[in-house]
């Protein structure tokens, strides 16, 4: 019976002499460990708008919205803070060297309005020159063109995008409206219009 008493007493003395264990948290800011998984943040420069992150996200926390206004086509990438589980799947799946979307160590995320709990970036969208539907983000087409190198020149969609980005073809070049002929093939087209224009050379 004596021994436990001595043990407890010695603990009490030790506790009396040592500094308090409790953190000074709100006064002293908290810094998480460097590989803490916090809020994922888009990188406007690196992101190519390929939607790989949306595809792999297990909780549908990433969405996109395409604005097919011909004057200013934009793809808005949305990340919902109120749904994200900070798993890092998006970062692992990102095709832009895992840098298009990256987990930060941001942990202080409390908010009061769920409508505002989202982060967005805008990426320029490439529309099909015939049907006006979105093909992909311009940066994505450039990324593909760079990846496949000289094979780019097998696809007008890709090489036109590439040449435009290099400034060889005028950025503001507006192709003639649909002529149902061979010239349709040398345009930036979506997969469907490409197939149609290839299969039907005759005028409709």
């Amino acid at each position, binding site marked *: 019976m004596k021994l436990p008493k001595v043990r407890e007493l010695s603990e009490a003395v030790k506790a009396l002499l040592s500094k308090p*264990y409790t953190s000074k948290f*709100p006064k002293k800011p908290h810094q998480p460990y460097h590989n803490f998984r916090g809020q994922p943040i888009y990188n406007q420069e690196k992101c190519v708008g390929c939607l790989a992150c949306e595809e792999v996200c297990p909780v549908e926390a990433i969405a996109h919205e395409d604005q097919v206004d011909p004057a200013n086509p934009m793809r808005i990438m949305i990340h919902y803070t*109120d749904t*994200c*589980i900070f798993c890092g799947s998006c970062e692992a799946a990102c095709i832009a060297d895992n840098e298009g979307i990256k987990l930060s160590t941001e942990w202080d995320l*409390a908010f*009061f309005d769920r409508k505002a*709990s989202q982060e967005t970036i805008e990426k320029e969208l490439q529309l099909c020159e015939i049907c006006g539907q979105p093909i992909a983000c311009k940066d994505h087409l450039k990324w593909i063109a760079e990846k496949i190198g000289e094979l780019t020149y097998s696809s007008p969609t890709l090489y036109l995008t590439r040449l435009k980005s290099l400034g060889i073809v005028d950025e503001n070049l507006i192709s003639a409206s649909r002529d149902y002929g061979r010239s349709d093939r040398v345009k930036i087209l979506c997969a469907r219009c490409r197939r149609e224009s290839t299969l039907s050379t005759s005028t409709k």
Partner: protein
Amino acid sequence: MSLTLRALLKSPWVFHLSTGSCNNCDIEVLDCLTPRFDIERFGMLLAPSIKHADVLLVTGSCNRKSAIRLKRLYEQAPKPCVVVAIGECSLSRGMFIHSYNCPLPLDKIIPVDAYIPGCPPKPEAIIMGAVKLIQKLKGTL
């Protein structure tokens, strides 16, 4: 600001309710009570009953069985009662958005004042969320 609200903010007692969560958020709330974080420093106390509490902390994805009880608890709570949603499940149901047993998000069942995202949020994030909420109610944020 009403007198009751001012009194409430001096020492908010919290009641914690799990509505079908995975336990992590609950444990992080409990963690706030333990030596490292010790939220009793700020006058916060975990109340044993909703009738003694000023703040209702809700975790979890509000499944059918607990949603009924959640509503009943909110009705029993003395007003003003501040509701804080902790964790992705109670914010938007996160993972369980298509689950047959979780039909509604929390803020469609009872009004929610603050949201603390995280899966689970760090105890620091919970404390920070509480601090922000108090500042907001005081009108300084």
